[in-house]
């Protein structure tokens, strides 16, 4: 509902159509103004609605970091786990409750750095998990330290003279480890992001979506991208849509093109399929008398 007050139109917060998807008492959130995490969270909710998955069957798992806060804000069953451990928690949930849709929402620092080991193994097993990984190119919550997705030449608190290490190319990493759905979008691509989120949610197996987030506070202002809008404009100017491209060709470099699109969509038996098959085999084994 929109109500008029003096000369400006303001949204009546109590009447926002997605309010019921946010956990009462947890809002306002801690995200900075200009951060893209708010709009990404909105897209997550819209995609969940569009996927028609019963909200009662959804579990959101997150690790630590700015993105990790999403689990606390969304009004679904949730686990706000330890730093890096979102995926093992998700595997535990999914195995014991195969009817659940387990969604991991976490950052690049959480998923690719301290939790990197779990990412490669969850992908290898094709575990029935959807990962929405928001990449803000560094550790935002702890104040902007260089991370495994920081590109060469990026300025952060632990690289005041520019990062010297090669970053991860997350879609390529996930795909090469066995993820069966892989895509990447920037925070600006809300429409395509939503379509892709729906696909990822309905995909059987390990689906991995990387979202390049706009973090003005600890990334942007150190890298001549002083506010959220400037980062989004920068994304817009650099984005090239290339569905189906080999994700190895989608490495991000300072000022280089940002390749977005759906890179992988294949079907393979999932971890749950394989476990159920094993159960069946075990049942068929006749005990020796």
């Amino acid at each position: 509902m929109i109500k008029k007050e003096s000369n400006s139109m303001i949204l009546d917060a109590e009447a926002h159509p997605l309010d019921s998807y946010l956990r009462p008492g947890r809002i306002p959130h801690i995200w900075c103004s200009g951060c893209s995490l708010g709009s990404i969270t909105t897209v997550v909710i819209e995609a969940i609605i569009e996927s028609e998955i019963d909200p009662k069957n959804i579990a959101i798992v997150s690790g630590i970091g700015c993105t990790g806060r999403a689990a606390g804000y969304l009004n679904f069953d949730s686990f706000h786990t330890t730093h890096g451990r979102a995926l093992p928690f998700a595997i535990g949930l999914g195995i014991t409750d195969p009817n659940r849709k387990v969604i991991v929402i976490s950052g690049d620092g959480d998923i690719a750095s301290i939790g990197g080991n779990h990412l490669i193994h969850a992908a290898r097993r094709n575990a029935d998990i959807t990962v929405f990984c928001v990449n803000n190119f560094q550790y935002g919550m702890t104040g902007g330290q260089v991370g495994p997705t920081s590109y060469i030449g990026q300025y952060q608190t632990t690289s005041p003279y520019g990062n010297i290490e090669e970053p991860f190319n997350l879609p390529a990493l996930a795909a090469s480890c066995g993820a069966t759905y892989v895509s990447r979008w920037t925070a600006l691509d809300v429409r395509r992001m939503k379509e892709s989120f729906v696909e990822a949610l309905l995909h059987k197996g390990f689906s991995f979506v990387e979202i390049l987030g706009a973090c003005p506070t600890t990334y942007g202002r150190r890298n001549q991208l002083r506010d959220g809008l400037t980062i989004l404009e920068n994304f817009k100017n650099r984005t090239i849509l290339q569905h189906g491209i080999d994700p190895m060709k989608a490495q991000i470099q300072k000022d280089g093109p940002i390749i977005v699109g759906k890179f992988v969509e294949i079907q393979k038996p999932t971890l749950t399929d394989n476990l159920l098959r094993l159960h069946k085999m075990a049942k068929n084994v006749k005990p020796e008398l």
Partner: protein
Amino acid sequence: MPSIKLLKGNHAAAYACKSARVGMVAAYPITPQSPVVEKISEFVEAGELPGTEFVKVESEQSAIAAVIAASATGSRVFTASSANGLAYMHELLPWAAGTRLPVVLCIASRALAAPWSVWTDHADVFATRDCGWITMFAENNQEIYDTVLTAYRVAEDPNVYLPAFCAYDGYILSHTLMPVQVEDIEKVDQFLPPLKHHINLTDFEHVKGVGPVTLPDPPDRGEYGYAPGYFEFRFSMQRSLEHSLSVIKQAHKEFSEIFGRSYGNGVYKTYKMEDAEVAIFAVMSVAAESRLAVDFLREKGIKVGLVSLKVFRPFPSEDLREIFKDISNVVVFDREIGYGWEGVLSYELKAALYKSSTQPDIKGYIVGLGGRDITYQQIAKGVQTALTMESVNENPIQTDFIGLQLDKLQFLKREGGY
């Protein structure tokens, strides 16, 4: 000339690393520790720490592994962490001690999850208790700087060769500015000689095996003799840790001679204990706040003093028996819980005084978990309440809490328990 700088606790630790000219630093970001290593990386990249390598690793576990290995090459190493980051290092904490490598690690203390809390709480520090490290505390930012230097001096002593922690409160010290005297490098060198290493992997004349498999009962290997067993290694760790108490005191004596600052006898500090009949026993932020409680209670005519523990491992039991020998009541304030029993400081003190001929009544309180403020008035009230109790030793399992807000927060009791 020594310079006085306005530093946050984390930066005081970073400046101490600079003064100690550490050779290698590896760390992973975690609140509230991160600024320590941000500052060090700034020193390194600005060329102010030539010869220092700063490694950005992918987790705390990698950080501690990397510094252990670097230490084995003969380098002076440093890392820092907090809470679950420190917990993630645990696998390798006994490894650092077992390989007798003088790693120094700063802990900006913070509550352990779950539930999450980024604020101060000493649970992370005390959870490291049995890993074989020396554990030191600091109550202010100057003390952080001084304790890091002391930690290197003690850890690298050939009669010790053990890793050491320097713990201080997250936010309360880590992010608060205080004047800190950063010492001249010549003076620091006088206090802290270059590291002479017992393992030096860069010495290619000798082949070394770090962390070999040991047997429960090592057999006679003929011409190669016996290999030491696990039991013997661990025995030597314990003896060295016990012995380190005198090394710490000696180091502290020299520290005060060189720099003109001292912290009690180096293992504990006292405040108005000279004529005290009642004593508060605490560490870090709680000890700092207790100084005000002592003044407050003295105005009311209660002869109270404070013993602020500076070294928790090795535990200075002899010293504590001595300082508490004429004290009727000790009131202990723990900012953690030894779950299922009581506050760690409280039960450690009881154990230490068990052999004492004159045992004071010891009353423990749990305070300030997850960063909840603990005021001197609350501490004073705790002391006053303890003094009205008949004999607090009668019911030792009971933990009393100060500052809980069960009613206000409508924290409901579940049926059959909390």
